[in-house]
């Protein structure tokens, strides 16, 4: 046993060079409280210190971008005087330890990021990643996470309209719970988290402050699970770092904040998330170039004898910080009383202090009483913006060439394609039925389809005929083999999903879930993924307007597969009729739209496919990405479907993007939801049945001649696959299944895997 006590800064998660940097900022030794403030603000979670130099390579601008990365949420101009704010976050480690509360507070946090911008949160989506359901702990995690999202999201009153559900052993000890929220606001009401106006007041709104979530960002989010059995062994030790959510408090907080904004009572507003009060006060002061005095004794507490460092860094949920002028205080207090939301003056905006060279520096001062002892005094900007940035070592994994050479593409097919197809079908309805997906009367296409499609409408918004579309996508199987191309293909997959509901993509947000950045292979994956995203976004003309980086997703020394999640926001100009979805009809012709074969030397690659992974074959190469052909195809599909949304007559009766499970799964899903079979021509190989590469769409038409002419006129490849009808799905001599079998297997797959009584 080591007998030397660990130095305080290391116990708080700061390295020796970071302590030196703090000494140099302050020109003196920091005290305990100051060290605690730096420890949370310079944590990986808050400062992005390992990823920031790479994130700079992403394109972030476009004429319609109103707010790019770095604010609480990205914002675009959606037209008709309406702006849309969007943000994505992870709540992975809290959910690993306490699935219900971890997932619930993930929803709460993302909502605050969005209404901080002045937007009413209108929609939530949840990409979820767990281990295989043969493990009882995974079933417990799934039930806990889904009921946490349901319990919090439904009650707080924001519809959950989609997400993703992925099962893979690499997430067994480190599940991923990501959450995306979008909201809308009248463009002129956009507000930013800025403190300005010396003499203004910082008002803390919402819950009292307790000991829950202290060090959440540094203890939980910025370190891996080290025990040999991963999260299991650390449950008890880390559980106190998980926050506890109260959706009823959040609901009243949302309504109160939106009403404060309606009345123009606030100068700036900021949510309290990771790192609590220190984060909100230092970030608002740093953005405004002012100082802030915080009276630590003014903050309402829910537990006795809390220390100043606990009060300043607590992550108690459902709190906001509003900057207001003193004249508005009585009105703010009255409005908050109506909503039963606690409002307390906890800070004063003060003049910057001249440094030794006479330059003004906004100082964050923590005081015992506004006129009392100064407990901590540090430059606000040094906390918020000046964490050290690391260019951590990167190294291509040594075994990558061997993994890529172990390619399943040329494997002799073993077993029955019928059984392969059935095994790929999973209906996620058990999950999404637990989510209110309809509130606000906007949901035209809800969960379980290619993308969600909503009317762009809400209380207080200008009248508009437009719609917004959202999709979240990831493919860790591709990204494990080739993080760069895999990420580019994931962006394309998202664009293809949006095309299926007639939407044109406008902006990307990302949640980059990776392993331990101190492993050079992980840093290489992260850097490659960012390059792939940058290439795809530049190629498709898409700005990245926000994101989140979640590192240290490891347990027992094993990193998760690289899992960049893409959230894509698009717009439909006129939404007066629903898009056709998967609903083909008897007698329609089914066609495959887009390049039939993948670019590159493998026409039907199987590396990284669900088909291969189910057989334990995880090696191979990912498909090459041909951005130009892809973009032409997706734009054609989006135009065809947008015409239907605008109420124009069309021969198109169904559309579905070919993605996970390949062409076979796409056809199987369409059979399952319609109950109508299809007779499809012989395909080239089992590879063509199960290969996955974006840019192909299964569409149905009741006037094949006209449809094919339009596609060819647009320079888009199209082949006729067959005819819709009957009670069987036949694909050449390869697949022959009854509709009933397909419907049953798809519906039962998840419920049986979860060992539930249906």
């Amino acid at each position, binding site marked *: 046993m080591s007998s030397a006590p660990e130095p305080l800064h290391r116990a708080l998660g700061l390295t020796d060079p970071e302590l030196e940097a703090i000494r140099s900022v302050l020109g003196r030794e920091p005290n305990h409280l100051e060290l605690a403030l730096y420890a949370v603000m310079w944590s990986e979670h808050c400062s992005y210190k390992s990823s920031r130099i790479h994130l700079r390579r992403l394109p972030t601008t476009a004429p319609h971008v109103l707010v790019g990365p770095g604010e609480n949420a990205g914002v675009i101009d959606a037209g008709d005087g309406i702006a849309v704010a969007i943000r994505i976050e992870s709540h992975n480690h809290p959910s690993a330890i306490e699935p219900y509360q971890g997932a619930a507070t993930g929803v709460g946090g993302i909502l605050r990021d969005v209404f901080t911008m002045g937007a009413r949160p209108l929609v939530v989506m949840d990409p979820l990643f767990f281990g295989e359901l043969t493990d009882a702990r995974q079933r417990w995690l799934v039930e806990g996470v889904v*009921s946490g999202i*349901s*319990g919090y999201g*439904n*009650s*707080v*009153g924001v519809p959950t309209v989609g997400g993703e559900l992925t099962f893979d052993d690499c997430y067994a000890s480190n599940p991923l719970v990501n959450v995306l929220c979008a909201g809308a606001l009248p463009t002129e009401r956009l507000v930013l988290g800025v403190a300005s106006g010396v003499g203004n007041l910082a008002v803390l709104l919402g819950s009292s402050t307790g000991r829950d979530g202290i060090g959440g960002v540094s203890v939980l989010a910025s370190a891996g699970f080290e025990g040999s059995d991963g999260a299991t062994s650390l449950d008890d030790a880390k559980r106190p770092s998980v926050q506890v959510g*109260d*959706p*009823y408090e959040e*609901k*009243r907080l949302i*309504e109160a904040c939106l009403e404060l904004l309606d009345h123009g009572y606030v100068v700036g507003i900021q949510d309290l998330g990771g790192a609590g009060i220190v984060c909100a006060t230092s970030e608002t002061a740093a953005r405004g170039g002012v100082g802030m005095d915080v009276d630590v004794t003014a903050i309402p507490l829910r537990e006795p004898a809390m220390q100043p460092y606990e009060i300043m860094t607590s992550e108690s949920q459902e709190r906001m910080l509003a900057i207001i002028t003193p004249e508005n205080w009585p009105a703010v207090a009255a409005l908050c009383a*109506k*909503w*039963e939301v606690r409002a307390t003056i906890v800070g004063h905006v003060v003049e910057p202090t001249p440094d030794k060279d006479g330059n003004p520096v906004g100082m964050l001062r923590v005081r015992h009483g506004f006129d009392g002892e100064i407990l901590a005094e540090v430059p606000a900007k040094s906390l918020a913006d000046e964490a050290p940035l690391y260019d951590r070592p990167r190294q291509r994994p040594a075994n990558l060439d061997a993994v890529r050479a172990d390619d399943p593409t040329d494997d002799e097919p073993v077993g029955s394609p019928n059984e392969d197809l059935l095994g790929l079908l999973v209906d996620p309805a058990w999950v*999404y*039925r*637990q*989510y*209110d*997906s*309809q*509130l*606000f*009367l*906007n*949901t*035209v296409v809800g969960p379980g389809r290619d993308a969600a499609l909503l*009317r762009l409408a*809400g*209380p207080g918004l200008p009248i508009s005929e437009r719609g917004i579309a959202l999709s979240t996508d990831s493919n860790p199987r591709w990204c494990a083999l080739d993080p760069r191309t895999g990420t580019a293909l994931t962006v394309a997959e998202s664009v293809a999903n949006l095309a299926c509901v007639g939407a044109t993509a406008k902006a990307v947000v990302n949640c980059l879930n990776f392993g331990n950045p101190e492993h050079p292979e992980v840093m290489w994956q992260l850097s490659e993924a960012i390059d792939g995203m940058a290439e795809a976004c530049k190629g498709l003309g898409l700005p990245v307007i926000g994101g989140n980086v979640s590192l240290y997703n490891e347990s027992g020394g094993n990193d998760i597969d690289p899992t960049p999640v893409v959230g894509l926001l698009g717009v439909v100009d006129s*939404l*007066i*009729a*629903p898009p056709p979805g998967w609903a083909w009809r008897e007698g329609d012709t089914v066609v495959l739209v887009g390049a039939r074969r993948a670019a590159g030397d493998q026409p039907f690659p199987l590396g990284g496919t669900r088909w291969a992974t189910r057989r334990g074959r995880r090696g191979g190469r990912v498909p090459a990405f041909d951005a130009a052909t892809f973009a032409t195809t997706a734009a054609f599909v989006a135009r065809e479907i947008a015409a239907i949304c605008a109420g124009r007559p069309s021969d198109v009766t169904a559309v579905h993007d070919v993605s996970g499970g390949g062409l076979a799964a796409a056809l199987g899903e369409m059979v399952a939801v319609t109950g109508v079979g299809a007779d499809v021509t012989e395909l080239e190989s089992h590879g063509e049945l199960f290969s996955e590469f974006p840019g192909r769409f299964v569409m149905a038409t009741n006037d094949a001649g006209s449809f094919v002419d339009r596609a060819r006129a647009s320079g888009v490849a199209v082949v006729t696959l067959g005819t819709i009808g009957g009670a069987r799905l036949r694909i050449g001599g390869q697949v022959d299944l009854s509709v009933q079998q397909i419907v049953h297997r798809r519906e039962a797959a998840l419920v049986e895997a979860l060992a539930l*009584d249906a």
Partner: protein
Amino acid sequence: MTRIGVVVFPGSNCEYDAVAGVSQLGAQAELVWHSQTDLSAFDGIILPGGFAHGDYLRPGALARFSPVMEAVARFAAEGGPVLGICNGFQVLTEAGLLPGALQKNRGLTFLCQPTTVIVTSTHSVLTSGAILGQELVIPINHFSGAFTCDDATLKTLEDNGQVVLRYKDNPNGSRDDIAGVANLAGNVVGLMPHPERAMSTLLGSADGRVLLASFVTANVPAA
């Protein structure tokens, strides 16, 4: 023009949807804060869906003590049309304005999905414009939506035609497939499905219109 008050408790969340629903049918709708005690300006009152007072204790258990509920009881006693949707139905049962209670769904999960309901009585402000036996596709969205009551109450409800809607394919374990009930006079109605979510084919169904249209014209036929 019919004036409809839509009561807002802290934690309600379907109030704007209820306003939108009846406004589409020509009514003039207005939000009523739960501390209000005068409802004389209104021709009808809706208690919307949501989680009034966080549904703490159990759904509706605290909302029945909000000041507005005494006014709602008076309004109902004078024959005024009162409609409770989802959480509003739960509040009306807790307040004793409707019989029975809503307990957790059979499967112990929240359920948001389309359901088909059958009109089983037209003797209510909600169903007077519908046809007996008519099937309507209307979504549900609840955790505690399984209607329950004792045998004597059930017999009374059935004898008096107070069961106004039944599920065709019971999703939540409701006793006797009950989706909506009325008081004896037919002027107070509660239902778990959300008719305001079924006002347009763009959103999947327009079958809720017949119900809300009955309510805004508030036409109670004689028994």
